[in-house]
Structures are given as structure tokens and as C-alpha cells.
């Protein structure tokens, strides 16, 4: 952080100003001219929160994607399918057992297992052949999408999370002050806030895992120099399998979390694959911090695009991607 401020003082100042403006926009009661310019404060704050929570969800999906890429140089284009499969499995388990949390756990484990199997049975056979690995994942996603359509059909599913996650809570943010002097507070769904909390928790857990544990150290070493890691006596294949399982498991986990926030239906796999792609392109492939930054930017851009220029929300995302590619081809946090 300090390094960043020293090296890019100008951008640091711009960032601080931006954050300050946002904080002011959130907490201040808006004067009339601002309401004229931007519309009602409620819309703005809701959009902001939607953007941040969507960013949290995108982070959950993209972190696994970027983790796998960082270590194995394997672009897993079946990542979206893993998300959707996790959501379906989680739904079935949750429906059968009546416990949403059990569904979440089983989705994580099942997808993690499938990821480990994929790494051991398929990708190990074609190490170093990036293009072929990518093509295999495309083939897998075609088959997976079709089989999932066969098993769960084209119906839209809706999770039923525990009672206490339902409903809305009052945020300590004033939207307008009525003429009588009473302040109107903004309400926001609890579940969305939970998604955000979970994303932050997972982010911190990942950071601790990567920076404070032995296997995390191996992973970081592997990202820097795979050959040297294996030469120093580490079972690289095991590390690969663990990382792949973790990355895939995160996708399954995100499937249940995201499926509850929105809904599950065929086609979601491509949507989240695209989201992960754009997030890691913007954030920088292979960097978990980059995934967090990218997810936040894309989530915000998508929601603000949807609220303020509804027709071309997707195009805004695209423009951000092109801009980042033009200015910094390796992504915001990309190393190389």
C-alpha cells in the first residue's frame, strides 16, 4: 500500500478523493440540485450496494478461476459449468435435507472433488499444453451444459435460505428528510449483505491461506517458478490437485450463494464464465487481489449501467475491459 502511494501519488490522491465523494454521497442528505442531477438518493445507494454485493459474488466465482490460472496456466473455461453444477447439486441437497447450509457444504465438496478428478485424470496428461487444456475445458462445458439441461431441465429454481436470512434491514443511512422532520432510512435485503460478508470472509481466508500456511507458501512459490518448486522436493502434482479442488470448490460454493441471491437456470454458466473472464482480464490473471478489485469494478459498472443507462449496461463493462487492455494489458494487478 505504501509502495503504491509512493509510486503513484497522483492516482492514490484520485482514489482517495473518489472514495471520499462516494462516502459523502452515501451518508449526506442530498441537496436538491444533486437530486436533480442524479435522481433519487435511494436509487443511487441501492445501486451502489447492489454493485458491491454483485462484485462480492463475482469475486467468489473469479477467485477460483484466477487461482487455478495463476498456478497452472490453465484457463478453465468450464468454470461457469462448475458454478451451475454446484448450484444444482446444492439445490437438490438443500431440498432433500431441508438444510440450506448442508446444500452449501455438499456443493463445495462435490465440485471440489470433481475439480481434483479433472486435474488428476485429464489435465495432468497434457501439462504445459495450454491451448489443448483450454479446448478440453470448452468440450467439457459443452457436454456439462447439455447433461445439466437433461437432468434439471430448463426450469428456473429458487433456493429457500433460512428464515433469518430473509427480509430487509434498516441501514443507518438517511435517504430523505421528510417535511415533518422525520428521517427516512434506507432498507436493504439481509441476504445481499450476507453475500458481501461471505465474499469478504472468503477473500481474507484465501489471503491467510496463501500467505500464512505451508501449502499456501508452496502455491505462491509455484506461481513464481514451477520447476524450481518441484526441484526442491515438493510434490507439485499434489499442490496442483489441491489448488484445482479449491478453485473448483469455490465455484460450486458461489453457485449456491449466487443461486440464492438470484436464481438458477440454464445459461447462468455462460453468464458467470463471462463475468469471471472480464473480472480477471480487468484485475489481472492469477492475482487474487486483482480478482477482488476487478470484481468490485465490474459489479459496480454493471449495476450502475443497469440503473442509469439500462440498454447498454453490458457495453459499459466491455468499455472498461478495452480501456484496461489499452492502458495496462496485463490487468490492474497482473504481474507480467
Amino acid at each position, binding site marked *: 500500500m505504501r509502495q503504491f502511494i509512493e509510486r503513484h501519488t497522483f492516482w492514490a490522491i484520485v482514489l482517495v478523493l473518489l472514495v471520499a465523494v462516494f462516502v459523502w454521497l452515501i451518508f449526506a442528505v442530498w441537496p436538491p440540485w444533486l437530486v436533480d442531477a442524479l435522481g433519487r438518493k435511494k436509487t443511487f445507494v441501492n445501486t451502489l450496494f447492489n454493485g458491491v454485493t454483485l462484485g462480492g459474488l463475482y469475486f467468489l466465482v473469479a477467485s477460483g478461476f484466477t487461482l487455478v490460472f495463476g498456478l497452472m496456466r490453465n484457463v478453465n473455461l468450464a468454470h461457469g459449468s462448475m458454478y451451475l453444477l454446484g448450484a444444482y447439486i446444492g439445490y437438490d441437497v438443500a431440498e432433500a435435507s431441508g438444510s440450506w447450509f448442508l446444500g452449501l457444504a455438499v456443493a463445495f465438496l462435490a465440485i471440489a472433488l470433481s475439480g481434483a478428478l479433472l486435474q488428476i485424470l485429464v489435465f495432468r496428461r497434457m501439462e504445459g499444453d495450454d491451448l*489443448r487444456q483450454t479446448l478440453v475445458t470448452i468440450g467439457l462445458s*459443452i*457436454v456439462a451444459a*447439455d447433461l445439466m439441461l437433461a437432468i434439471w431441465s430448463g426450469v428456473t429454481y429458487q433456493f429457500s435460505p433460512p428464515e433469518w436470512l430473509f427480509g430487509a434491514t434498516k441501514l443507518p443511512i438517511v435517504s430523505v428528510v421528510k417535511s415533518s422532520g422525520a428521517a427516512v432510512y434506507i432498507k436493504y435485503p439481509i441476504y445481499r449483505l450476507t453475500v458481501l460478508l461471505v465474499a469478504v470472509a472468503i477473500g481474507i481466508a484465501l489471503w491467510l491461506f496463501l500467505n500464512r500456511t505451508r501449502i499456501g507458501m508452496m502455491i505462491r512459490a509455484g506461481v513464481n517458478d514451477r520447476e524450481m518448486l518441484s526441484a526442491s522436493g515438493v510434490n507439485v502434482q499434489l499442490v496442483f490437485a489441491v489448488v484445482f479442488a479449491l478453485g473448483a470448490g469455490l465455484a460450486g460454493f458461489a453457485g449456491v450463494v449466487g443461486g440464492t441471491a438470484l436464481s438458477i437456470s440454464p445459461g447462468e454458466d455462460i453468464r458467470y464464465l*463471462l463475468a469471471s473472464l472480464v473480472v480477471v*482480464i480487468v484485475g489481472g490473471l492469477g492475482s487474487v487481489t486483482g480478482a477482488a478489485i476487478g470484481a468490485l469494478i465490474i459489479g459496480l459498472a454493471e449495476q450502475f449501467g443497469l440503473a442509469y443507462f439500462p440498454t*447498454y449496461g*453490458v457495453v459499459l463493462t466491455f468499455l472498461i475491459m478495452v480501456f484496461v487492455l489499452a492502458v495496462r494489458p496485463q490487468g490492474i494487478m497482473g504481474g507480467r
Partner: protein
Amino acid sequence: MAAERRRGHGIFSGGVRWSDLHPATVVAVVFLLAYPSFSSDFFTVQIGAYSLILGTIALSLMMLAGYGGIVSLAQLTVAGFTAYLVAILGDNSVGVMGLGWPWWLTVPVSILGGAVLGALIGAIAVRTEGIYTIMITLAIAVVLFFFVRQNYVIFNGWTGFAGIEPPTLLGVYWRDPVPFYYLSLLVAGFFFCAVVYLSRSTFGLGLQAIRDNPRRMRALGFDVALHRIFAFFLAGLVSATAGVLLVWFYGRVSPGTMGVEGTIDILVIAVVGGLRHPIGPFLGAIGFVLLENFAIDLIDRERFNTVIGLVFLAIVLFSPDGVLGLWNRIRPRLRFDRNVRPASGRAETDAGDHPAGVRESTS
């Protein structure tokens, strides 16, 4: 045309000498030319012409991937965009846009527009390399798909355009099965020869050298990015022309024309056929179209994608060079009687395709 085709196959079969010419080549050309005379309308258009169109789009991918090492998933997007341009600049029956330009203006402008889009996509994509390119072109393809779906003013959103007619020229209505087949064959044959020619031109050799070692080429003073963008432009021309045929084939165009499924289909066709030689995409396209139409007899119609996906997986897992790679592997075992060069060496590199003199003259 037959003569040029033969030369193309000459490369395929291992050398440029005329004596090496395989009789199968002549048979193939004669078969393609005579095909409509003995097939039904369905086979002429739905199988024949459609395979040729898909093959041409896949050819543009093959040319980028095989010679440039760039796997672009946005080639169908270029074709779809051109199809839209034809509907927008020419006539359509929807009542949105349709500027009513004559065909001789609409078609070249549309093709050029498509190629320029291809070059623009290239300009974005070439900033990255290898695996990144797949991701970025995929992202671009998906985003453009959403864009045409959302835009109602120009692209008419979900519905797209209908009632797009090819011109009646020389007293022939080009939508009729036989003329349309020959039109597709002409386009496919032309671009096939053009790509074969390209692979041996100075530019093509430069492109292949860049594929093999971009750093060295940069050090030698080649503008790597410009070469790649120009390759995208040329591939755009191929794909865009196929796009014109595509819109005449369907008579309509909608966002689904350039959707993700179609994009992946094109990749499947190119990879299954083989990315080493221009004939690969056409073989892949024929296989794909036949499977698409007749898989219904073998398995449930609904599970078509599973079959396609499994075929694709099998090819990628066991024969990275596609059907062509399989052929190269089997061939030495079939030709005991001849003085055979090791086929594996050829499968590894394209170097065997070029006479040494040509290669040296560029360096």
C-alpha cells in the same frame, strides 16, 4: 479452378511436386462440381451449401490459429455482424433500417465493414498472447451478442431482421438450391485457394514465423502487432463473405446468429477438422452438419450437444491435430509400397510444407 485445387491438395499430401498429386484430389473436385446433379435439394443446400458456409467461417479461424497461432472466438461474430450489415444497408421486411442500397454496393460495403470489425477485434486482442486471446475474443463475442440483442434502433434487438433476399442476377435467382450451392462452392473454393496461397506468401511466412517465435521476429524488425492485426483483417474478409452467404441462406438474421453456441460450434468444427491445413475446417464442417442433421436417427435429438461435445473431447484428447492429424498418423501404415517420408515430422511443423528456397528468401 480444378488446377488450383489440385495444387492445394499437393501441399496437403506432402510436397509441391505434380507427380505427388493424389488421384483422390481429382475425384474430390469432380465430386464437388457434380454434387448437385445427383443429390436432392435438401442435400444440395442444407448439407452441401451449409457445410461450405460453415467451413468458410471455420477457415478464417483455421487461418488465424494455424498460421498465426491466434485462436479467435470472434470469427462468427464478424460473420454475424456482416449479415446484419447486409440487412441494414440492403432491404429487409421488418421495417427497421433497410436503407435499400443496391446489392453491388451493399455486399462489398458489408464485407469491408465485417473485415474492419475483425481488424478492430484484432487490435484489441493482439495486445495479449496465447491463452489470453481466447478469453478476450470470447468476451468480445459475448458482449457484441448482448449489444445487438439490446439495441433496437439499429439492430432491432431480439427479433433481428427477416426477409433478406439475394439479388436476381443474370436471370438466376441465387437463392435457388443449385445456384446457391455453386455460389457457396465458388466462395469456399476461392478462399481455400487464397489461404493456401497466403500460407506461402511473404506475409504468410512472416505470420508463421511470428507464431513460432514472436520475440525473434520483433528483433528482426518485423511489426508483430501489425502482422497480427492484418491477419485478423484478412480472416475478417473470409468470415464476412461467408456471413453474406449465411444471411442469404437463412433469409434472416438475429442475435442468435452470432451467439455463444454458434461461436463454440465454429471452434469445434475447426479443431475437429484440423488446424494445420485449410482443408481441415471443411472436413470438420461436413462432419458437423451431417451429425447435426442425422444424429436424430442415432440418439435423442435433444442430446445433440452431448454427442458433439464428446466427439470434440475425443479429438482434442487423442488427436490434437484433428481428423487431419489422424490421417497423417494412419497414412504411413497404408503406404507400404512407396518411399515414404516420416509423417510424424510433418505433423509437428509446417516447415515441411514450404520449399527451403522460399523460406530463406524472406529471412
